[in-house]
């Protein structure tokens, strides 16, 4: 009997920390295969910079998933943040407004997403899919379909290209955002309410939680985080493409789903998302170093997401 119980607790351990362990294994594997290029401090810093965009956009997706909804417009919203900020920068606005206005715009669009979902009971899947299309169209209208890169002032590049010693500002922002949202989700009444809504919307309403208000807040924050991601990307690259952020969307959800398999079983959580994004980033980095062809990278990343989700089912039985 004790043996049976021990094996159950092993299974639980794997279920809770399996994804983290898999991450460690992936790092070990790459370190063995490529000790001189992968396993270096420089590369670690490099990875932290590369994943900063994915982590921040995925934090937003985590909030929306915590209330049991989807926001499929995050990619377009990130693109919007980028082109809007770049356009403002080129037009010579002070850097404060260059950053703030796109954030507020995305906050508003996110709020509208939430409002349509909560007020008219439209599926968030449909609402945000359509909103993503609309934003995508607007992005092309703003830029005329071209990349914005000429006459971008240096002040705009500060965010994405500054390094303190060896540490990129981007990585610092990413860590700061992760801790901030971890705190919000676990130590504030707002976080508790978001999780309650995701756990049981009807019961939350009866318990006096203002469901629509809090859901709208989650959508608005998600939009804002997506815009921040886009601004940072544009600042890093010194250019903004009307669909430059679109590619982040699928990976953002992959990160959240990977994260749901760690720490808190089946619940979107901030550190889980961070680990998920890190795993995706490390895979991309390591496989590029090993010269794995891009198509193969996609196949492997997809397989790992499925494997992580399957691992969580381990020992669940059929019940």
């Amino acid at each position: 009997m004790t043996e049976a119980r021990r094996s159950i607790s092993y299974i639980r351990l794997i279920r809770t920390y399996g994804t983290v362990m898999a991450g460690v294994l992936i790092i070990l594997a790459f370190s063995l295969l490529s000790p001189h290029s992968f396993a270096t401090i420089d590369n670690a810093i490099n990875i932290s910079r590369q994943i900063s965009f994915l982590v921040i956009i995925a934090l937003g997706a985590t909030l929306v998933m915590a209330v049991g909804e989807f926001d499929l417009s995050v990619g377009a919203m990130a693109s919007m943040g980028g082109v809007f900020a770049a356009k403002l920068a080129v037009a010579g606005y002070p850097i404060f407004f260059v950053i703030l206005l796109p954030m507020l715009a995305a906050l508003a669009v996110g709020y509208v997403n939430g409002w349509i979902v909560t007020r008219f009971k439209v599926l968030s899947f449909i609402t945000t899919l359509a909103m993503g299309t609309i934003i995508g169209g607007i992005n092309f209208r703003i830029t005329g379909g071209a990349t914005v890169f000429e006459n971008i002032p240096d002040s705009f590049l500060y965010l994405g290209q500054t390094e303190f010693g060896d540490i990129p500002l981007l990585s610092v922002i990413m860590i700061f955002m992760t801790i901030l949202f971890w705190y919000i989700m676990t130590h504030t009444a707002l976080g508790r309410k978001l999780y309650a809504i995701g756990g049981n919307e009807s019961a939350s309403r009866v318990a006096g939680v203002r469901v629509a208000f809090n859901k709208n807040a989650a959508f608005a924050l998600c939009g804002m985080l997506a815009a921040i991601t886009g601004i940072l990307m544009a600042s890093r690259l010194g250019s903004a493409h009307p669909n430059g952020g679109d590619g982040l969307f699928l990976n953002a959800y992959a990160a959240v789903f990977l994260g749901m398999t760690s720490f808190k079983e089946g619940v979107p959580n901030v550190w889980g998302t961070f680990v998920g994004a890190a795993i995706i980033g490390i895979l991309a980095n390591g496989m590029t170093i090993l010269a794995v062809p891009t198509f193969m990278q996609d196949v492997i990343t997809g397989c790992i997401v499925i494997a992580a989700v399957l691992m969580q089912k381990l020992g669940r039985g059929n019940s």
Partner: protein
Amino acid sequence: MSLLRVDGLNKIFGQHYALSNVSFEIGPGEVHALVGENGAGKSTFIKIVTGVYAPDGGTIAWKGKPVHIGNPGDARAIGINVVHQDRHLIPSFTGYENLYLGLSYPKGKLGVGVHWKEMKERARTLMETYGVKLNMNKTAQRMSPPEKTMLEILRAMMLECSLLILDEPTASLTDQESEQLFELIGKLTQAGTSILYVSHRMDEIFRLSDRITVFRNGKHVATVNRQDTDRDGLISLMNDNEYKKANREERNVPPGKPVLEVRGLSSEDGKVNGVSLHVREGEVVGIFGLAGAGRTELLETIYGLRRKSGGDIVIQGKPQSSASPRSSLDQGVVLIPEERKRDALVLGMSIRENITLPVLRKFSGGLKMRRKTELREAERWMADLKVKASGAEQAVGQLSGGNQQKVVFAKALISSPVLFLCDEPTQAVDIMTREEIHRLLKSQADAGGAVLFVSSDLQEVLDIADRLYVLHEGRIAAELPNRDVSPEQVLAYCFSQGKDRES
């Protein structure tokens, strides 16, 4: 010869015996009641004989021969079917489609298309056999609770079924609806089907069953003939302690100030239609009505979950301009919803998180949650209400029904309410928890609070209400002080369409 016979049945979860050495038998064509408090092992037993769980020991004999029931398919194949408390129907499917769930549809000439005519024909014969009238073209979601129950029973009878297990079949039915079910049960037994009837409701058990088996803490306590026992005898078998008969004790209601005054209240969807009522300090007021009378809707409109289209709600002298759950809670009004799992609890969250959800403000200092204070408060309420759990951090979904209901009450009490709105507060909880809940409601009233509760169990209303309203089609049909009121009187108002009141 017995139909089903179990010998020395064991089932172990962890170190806990859910069933231990259970032996008894069910005869052919009998209604065999199975009773016991929540956690006595009734559900486990059902799951074993229907092949959901494998027993850890013991044997099962079916019609005299030992059998192995490895999965629910095996059980159905030999003729054991179960109709659960929570219905297993597909909401968007019609009666016909639900009837054929899990069976192969009769095929048309080409062997591909569904042979609808044959399907309907078979359903019709089945309904005729058991005297059931049901519009099978309706989708399940548009059927009333009794219609759904009938449909499920019919589905069980689609295959040769010798033992039909009914698990709390009347939990969501009104008395009048239950009658239809009892009639059907009579027809089934006449046709030779045995019924294993699991229920908390004593009057039904004594009315229907031939024999009664009592479980307690996973053990078989006794199997008795109905004639050889009575309610008190049965309850003392279910419970170790001597059980005191639940009689109504006259409470002295002080003529307190009104806590709730409702005048001409109507809901936007018309389910509540010009209701006026009041509840005073220290009063327990019951609302009784048949299903569809608008009982739940009335409470929800008062609480602000349902939009009102007219009328006034006054709480402690203060008119409520815009009712919402938040403002109700702030005024000291709490609602205990009927559907515990759907509306009252976040099952994946801990007991602590559930209890404090309505009063998060109380525990957030600035931005931060004050975790320690929160935990202390949650633990205090758990102790007060005797919630059995491994601790405040245990997920509510892991608790038994009775303990979940206690968490619901803790969650309501934590906001120090002046008015309790309870919708079916004791539905599907065991008799001891039921007593505790009744005591709790009374003690709320004794402490100067006001209680307004809805129950489809007339006995319950007559047991604990000081005053009662009879609701009929969204209107108040009668207001009665609970003195020498007979069930017949109350039911008369339910059917009288409130004619005498109109004048």
